[in-house]
């Protein structure tokens, strides 16, 4: 399964996700975005930058003593999730969703998605 197929499958499971992307936080770039993604390159880069700020670098956590494996940023009408890839700590799965997203279900499915992507790499 390609990265795009994995993202599209996750999107099918969770339609509340508008944008799903696999990003290289170190490079500050989204590598692949799901087929339904409506964001342009500029918006994707901004999303990546925001996620990079939240997740920080493995050696320099933004808050606390350990680098976060997941970050969420919620405001009215917008929910951003960023999950660090366990095998590639500088990579992350990003999701921009409606706040009604099933957070618990999505976290679990997103981790499976990351595992599948890492297996393909």
């Amino acid at each position: 399964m390609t990265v795009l197929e994995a993202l599209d499958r996750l999107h099918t499971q969770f339609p509340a996700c508008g944008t799903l992307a696999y990003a290289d936080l170190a490079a500050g770039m989204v590598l692949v975005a799901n087929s339904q993604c409506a964001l342009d390159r500029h918006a994707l880069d901004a999303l990546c930058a925001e996620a990079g700020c939240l997740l920080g670098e493995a050696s320099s956590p933004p808050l606390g003593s350990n680098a976060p494996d997941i970050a969420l940023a919620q405001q009215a009408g917008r929910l951003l999730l960023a999950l660090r890839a366990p095998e590639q700590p500088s990579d992350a799965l990003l999701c921009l969703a409606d706040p009604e997203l099933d957070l618990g279900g999505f976290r679990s499915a997103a981790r499976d998605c990351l595992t599948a992507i890492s297996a393909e790499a």
Partner: protein
Amino acid sequence: MTHDDAIADNLAALAARQTVFRDGKRVISNGFFPPPLPAILQEIATTVLPRQVTFQAGDSHLSLVVSERRLMALTSASSDLAEVQPLIGTGLSHDQPDVLEAVASALVRLSQMEQPVLVDTGFSGPSEGQSGLGVPLGMLKDLIALDQAEQERPMAFFIDASADLYVACLLHTDGTWMEAAEDETVLASLQQVADVQWERFQASFAKHAAPLAAPRLISLGAVLEDGLCVSVVWADGEYALFAHSQADLVGLHEMWRRVFTL
């Protein structure tokens, strides 16, 4: 701060106070926050010119003529509000204790429906509400005996409502930190975050995200010892840091939505 930054901040602050409408009616409470009954009474308190004001919660509604902060007449009510059915189409007077009690009871029951409370305001007819003395808001409040503590700012309400969802909390308000914790060790870790990392993180995040005037919640997973998460809530110039388990992450975000969004 540049001129453009100031404009962006002001726009974000205005957007944060945006009025929400459902089915053409203004939402004054999502059924949880702002507390519905004070929101209903506040709506009456701000009505000076004669207006027909309809409060709706789910399938229940109460339509009143309100003028100069007095309830002047009851024009319609859903059938479940049985106590006010005899008053429909009549002028209201505060010198009739049973009228006062019936209206108060109906307002309280409407506020307890656990539904979003909507309000629709229109012009009142020329003959409506002319025959009664009206029920002053003050008399209504005395009868209802509102819990003043319930009328808290959103941040204070959120901290109280989420008490079972975090291990430690630090609230920064009016230039000082206030703390609450079950575990002093965790509180010390959170205080360390507040003292050493917080300002730099806030500055970094402000560069990448929209201006911070709008209420928001940020959560970072497993950043403290024992896999505890740190969450931060910004609202109305205050911010609070929370240390909590991963298991409570979803609950905290759901509570944030209940308090900070309509």
